[in-house]
């Protein structure tokens, strides 16, 4: 009975499978960073309570070794990005909501959809399993720069590459499915500019996945060849490790990997962000009871973002030895790409103006997304200018920057989505509001206490990925003590997630208390009735239309005289 869900080709079931699997991985990725935060605040002191469970090879006496610390860092990044946030934002919300929002009976290729989930599942299992292989998991950063990754002892890095290949297959299959579904299966009357903004965001995201991931797929195969077949795609001649000349063919280029990786890596940043923006747009329109401000401009901005995200990748590489012309090009594209981001963020803020704002739990998360994403975006400016990147590159400033975008940014948007669509996904059950508000306030405070001091540390010059948090460096001494409140906040953040986990499972078993459309929403996923009879008559966010008796007009409600929904 339970197992049959694992073989279902129904997009809603697959969406939920993605949802629960990715929430599990988010928890795993977060647990790794709790260990990292302990080590940064108390370097060399045994991890309390769980130190003995980490294995003598990783943490003798509970003290995290540098080798294990690097595993934690690499796998935290990998798991959070590729197994947590993207599968939840795209796999779960995309699969569940796109067919419902466009009025399609299912995804275009239901079996491909299931295959995509299983590739993801296998990729995740490989990544988790790699912690148990001799030498442990990959420990070369989530960016896996060679020669370090090429030459890493043990099998962890090879497992990482195999896992990535599975995840890439999964994303490519999913992206094809999303694009085909949105192009082909829209209900009658669902014209392009009647699509909810969330669908637009997923549409552009799918193109990014489809076009960017093959670069990393190729790179992962080449690195796998280097590790297993003795090739030297990323190994130059003349290497000497530990004082010994290295017996490899040589002639490769270590920098090539960085180009291939970031050609994926930068579009991937927008894959992390765009679905979050889509969710926030849905939640904000619903809870302000008014249309999205600047809907068309926002859609155009999505396309500009998507296109430009392919020509900014080398701003991650300003310090690899770049001339004036190339650096000027990548700085210019980086400054230009900030404009559509500003347009989308301002439109979301301006959408609030004139609304009748309900501070529901999903709305609180969606509102917090705006300033948090703002901080993340703004702190990208000094990193995107090559000159100011010199002191800030590879410091904690970078860590703070992208965490603001993804943690209190995208992950808050994902929480907003879970609280918002929970009644739709569970057939009329609501999540507990009090627990939700405690979860929100605690997470917001803790995240800021963790990430804001990273900018202070980064400006002082403290580098990232240091086992002792920079304790050996003189320039770090004044800001080193910040690590203790930061880590306390990370433990606090873990505590406040318990409110979410308990809430989720209690509410899943709770009574069905609400109607089909508890939030009074306009988009199709909230309207019941047979899909075959569905017809769309209006724009996605017809809230508070002057002269109408209700403050919302669902997309499938025709012009007066109005009959019931879906007739």
């Amino acid at each position: 009975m339970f197992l049959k869900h694992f073989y279902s080709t129904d997009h809603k079931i697959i969406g939920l499978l993605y949802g629960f699997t990715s929430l599990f991985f988010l928890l795993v990725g977060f647990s790794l960073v709790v260990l990292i935060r302990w080590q940064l605040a108390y370097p060399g002191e045994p991890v309390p309570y769980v130190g003995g469970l980490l294995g003598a090879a990783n943490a003798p006496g509970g003290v995290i070794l540098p080798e294990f610390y690097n595993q934690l860092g690499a796998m935290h990044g990998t798991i959070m990005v590729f197994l947590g946030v993207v599968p939840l934002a795209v796999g779960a919300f995309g699969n569940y909501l796109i067919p419902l929002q466009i009025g399609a009976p299912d995804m275009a290729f239901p079996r491909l959809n299931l295959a995509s989930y299983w590739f993801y599942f296998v990729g995740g299992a490989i990544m988790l399993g790699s912690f148990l292989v001799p030498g442990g998991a990959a420990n070369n950063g989530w960016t896996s720069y060679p020669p370090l990754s090429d030459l890493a002892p043990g099998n962890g890095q090879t497992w990482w590459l195999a896992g990535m290949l599975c995840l890439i297959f999964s994303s490519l299959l999913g992206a094809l499915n999303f694009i085909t579904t949105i192009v082909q299966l829209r209900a009658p009357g669902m014209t392009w500019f009647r699509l909810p903004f969330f669908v637009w965001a997923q549409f552009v995201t799918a193109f990014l996945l489809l076009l960017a991931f093959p670069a990393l797929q190729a790179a992962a195969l080449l690195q796998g060849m280097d590790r297993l077949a003795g090739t030297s795609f990323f190994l130059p001649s003349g290497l000497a490790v530990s004082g010994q000349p290295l017996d490899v063919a040589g002639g490769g280029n270590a920098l090539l990997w960085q180009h291939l990786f970031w050609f994926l890596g930068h579009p991937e940043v927008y894959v992390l962000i765009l679905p979050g923006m889509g969710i926030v747009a849905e939640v904000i329109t619903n809870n302000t009871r008014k249309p999205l401000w600047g809907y068309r401009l926002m859609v155009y901005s999505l396309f500009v973002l998507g296109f430009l995200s392919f020509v900014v990748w080398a701003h991650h590489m300003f310090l690899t030895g770049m001339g004036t012309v190339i650096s000027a090009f990548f700085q210019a594209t980086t400054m230009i790409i900030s404009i559509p981001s500003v347009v989308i963020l301002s439109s979301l803020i301006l959408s609030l103006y004139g609304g009748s704002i309900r501070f529901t739990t999903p709305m609180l998360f969606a509102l917090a997304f705006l300033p948090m994403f703002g901080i993340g975006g703004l702190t990208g400016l000094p990193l995107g200018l090559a000159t100011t990147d010199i002191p800030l590159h590879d410091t904690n400033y970078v860590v703070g920057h992208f965490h603001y975008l993804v943690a209190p940014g995208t992950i808050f948007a994902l929480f907003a989505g879970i609280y918002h669509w929970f009644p739709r996904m569970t057939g009329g059950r609501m999540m507990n509001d009090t627990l939700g508000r405690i979860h929100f306030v605690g997470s917001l405070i803790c995240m800021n206490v963790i990430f804001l001091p990273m900018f202070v540390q980064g400006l002082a010059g403290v580098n990232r990925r240091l086992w002792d948090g920079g304790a050996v460096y003189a320039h770090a001494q004044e800001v080193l003590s910040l690590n203790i409140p930061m880590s306390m906040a990370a433990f606090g953040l873990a505590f406040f997630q318990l409110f979410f986990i308990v809430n989720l499972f209690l509410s899943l078993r709770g009574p069905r208390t609400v109607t089909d459309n508890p939030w009074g929403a306009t988009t199709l996923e909230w309207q019941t009735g047979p899909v075959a009879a569905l017809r769309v008559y209006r724009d996605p966010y017809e809230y508070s239309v002057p002269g109408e008796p209700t403050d919302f007009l669902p997309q499938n409600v025709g012009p007066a005289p109005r009959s019931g929904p879906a007739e």
Partner: protein
Amino acid sequence: MMEWLGLPPAASAHAAGVDQTMVLVHALMAVLFVGWTIFFTYVLIRFRRTAHRDASYHGLRGRWSTVIEGAVLVAEVALLVFFSVPLWSARVDAFPPEAQSTVVRVVAEQFAWNVHYPGADGRFGRTSLELLGPSNPLGLDRTDPAGRDDITTINQLNLPVNRPVIVHLSSKDMVHSFALPQMRVKQDAIPGIAQPVWFTPTATGRWEIACSQLCGLGHYRMRGFYTIQSPTEYEAWLASEAALIATP
């Protein structure tokens, strides 16, 4: 605002330009963030459900958001064209002549910085993989006439003040990153690629070289030192190092 940002002390000729750009960017960020936050807070209070029962279908009217977006673009272009690009160009295109500079090689390895001075003749000796050994981490060929007077150190870089420095940077094994925080210098050291970097120290002092790129389990302790000395102190140091080679 310079102190408020908490950057390390600046001690090179180009540091002022980097720091000034840093201050301007952060000023722009602060203005935008404070502006957005004021508007955001006002809207949340003014248009809460209890104060504003019926939402406005049309919402905000007017084009001033376009004006703000245009202003952001203008500010960014100004930062790019008048600050970042010229400063960057001076870093990578306008190298001083080697004859008027202090020229050294720095070769990174797990987890140390090998420093190579050309010695009195101003020429670097030949290096070779075959000659690598515990006492010769650079693989320097002492039989090469150019290499006889070369000075090598580990994790200690001495430089004279107020004279341009050219560092020829490379790596033996992994990607490292050579950071001198007080010089506002950071440059990846990538095996197979020799990368020059230049700067002019303007104050004497003793600080640390930091590795900024994850290079393995000892990355956190890949720390070296650099000392900016007066010309006389620097010459005296070179002479004492040269004496060590003469009497091994």
